[in-house]
């Protein structure tokens, strides 16, 4: 059980739509980054 005052007065990130949106954007960046690197690896290998 939380002690009084133990929680932050700020809205938790999971309930802040903008912060949650940014967190999703970070995940998308990493996924797209990996896809782009994989694409470049394929381009390097496919035409040898």
């Amino acid at each position, binding site marked *: 059980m939380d002690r009084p005052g133990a929680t932050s007065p700020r809205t938790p990130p999971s309930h802040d739509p903008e912060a949650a949106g*940014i967190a999703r954007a970070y995940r998308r*960046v990493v996924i797209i980054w990996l896809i*782009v690197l994989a694409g*470049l*690896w394929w*381009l*390097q290998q*496919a*035409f040898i």
Partner: protein
Amino acid sequence: MHWIDWSILVGFTAWIVYDGLKRTRDSGELEGYFLANRTIPWWAAGLSVMATQLSAITMIGTTGQGYNDGMRFIQFYYALPIAMIILSVTLVPFFYRSGVYTAYEYLERRFDPKTRSLTSLLFLLSRGMSVGAVVSAPAVVLSLVLGWDLTATALLITMPAVVYTMFGGVQAVTWTDVKIMTLIVIGLVAMVAAAVFGLPAGIGLGDGLGIAAATGRLRSFEFSWDLTNQYTFWSGTIAALFLFCSYFGTDQSQVQRYLTARSEGEAKRSLLMSAYWKIPLQVLVLLLGVMVFVFYVFNTPPLLFSSAQEKKLKEGPAASQYATLETEFASALTARRSAGEAFAAARDSGDVSRLAAARADFVERNNSVSAVRTRALSLVRDTTGDRAFTDVNYIIPTFILTHLPIGLIGMLIVAIVMAATDTIAGELNSLSTATVIDFYKRWITPVGSDAHYLAVSKAATGVWGLLACGVAVWAAELGSLIEVVNRFGSFFYGSILGVFILAVGFPRATGTGAFVGLLAGMGSVGWVASMTKIAFLWHNVVGAVGVVFVGLAVSLLERAVRGARGGSSAWR
């Protein structure tokens, strides 16, 4: 150029200046002039971030690098998306919430005035000189390729930026960046399409990529731990991470772009736009060079892409040597073209052994062509005494002017000119901001009206613009000096990042620690650069790590001295 191309160049430039000047009414006070009253949508701020980084040097130099070396350079950008996430989590919230105009202003709030002034001064020195280089490189190439006067070309590139930045402030810079960035992307796609459609019948995109791969031009991963090799997977993911964190997180020319966003979240989204699009855009830039190489396998390229140097050789004492090289080059090209056609036919046949033999033959023929070109470049170096001569910057302008239709030529020339113009505009705007906010307002006139600071800001933009013009016009004479100054500028990046790491990552670091650490970091980079052959990307790591270690050591020492004296042990 045809009058239609001239009309496109003049018309687009006039429109950009007119549109920039319209923004004057939104820039009536200091926050509007420097930060657009924080009203810019994230996508426009994001495009402005990308446009400021993409200069004419990218359009002519990086594409030429793609022609010569292929995709290898793309490794330089591998860390960029991760750097953007790190900055969004760390520095952006500090900058945005503290309401600063410059990144260095934040350092005074965290540390002290001397740390702020030193970092801002380093920015002014390095960025001030780089503005000259941003103008001079394309000005020299365009003046030689198009037969224009060098001064007139430098003025054509610089003056629109000076005019709309001076009067329209950051609003003008951002919205012209959006238009120019759109033009550049359309131009790059059009050039790649022109190179692919210029291949002869029977040679498809797959054959072209096969030819590029045979010569190693599709290599995008090099897992070498050789620290003297500039472009490897490791330098691109580790060392470049420090460079991008420094460039996008501590360089005012970038920070100012996302400080104009409507909210902290939008500022982060504007940075993430580069995280999504920078690598694909850079792939497009390099792929253009690669496809132009393939295009010239089946179409006749000049022996030297610099027609001015070629003319000098033909009219000089080395004319007979050059004529011999031209004859050898013509027969080498014919053999390479035949080998290229045989390679494409072997790919279609599906016969593995035939394909391997055709590939080996093509590689050999291509090496013969490269060898003749190398001898021609050496002949230029020997006759001119310019040991660093290369025609890499002339490849794409030559392709545009000799193989593309009227109208498209005008659009692409204006894209190259405007790529320089928008970079200069962003840099002039940030130079003016740092000059006024970090020096004039901080040290000379701390109290004054908004109208007064606005007038000084416009004057500062004009003065920096004149300086850029001056450096660019005298580029030919200052060539080696500019290079030295730019190399000197690269000493700062990692070290400045180290100061910001101390600021946000180590609450116990002191102002004196950060200041001494900054000097030590720059010193250590200078030592590594002069005493070793370690590639410059790694200098950023040396600088940042040096600043953090020395900065923390001095901070600890300062605390111990204060404790021994019985003074306050409070940490700033």
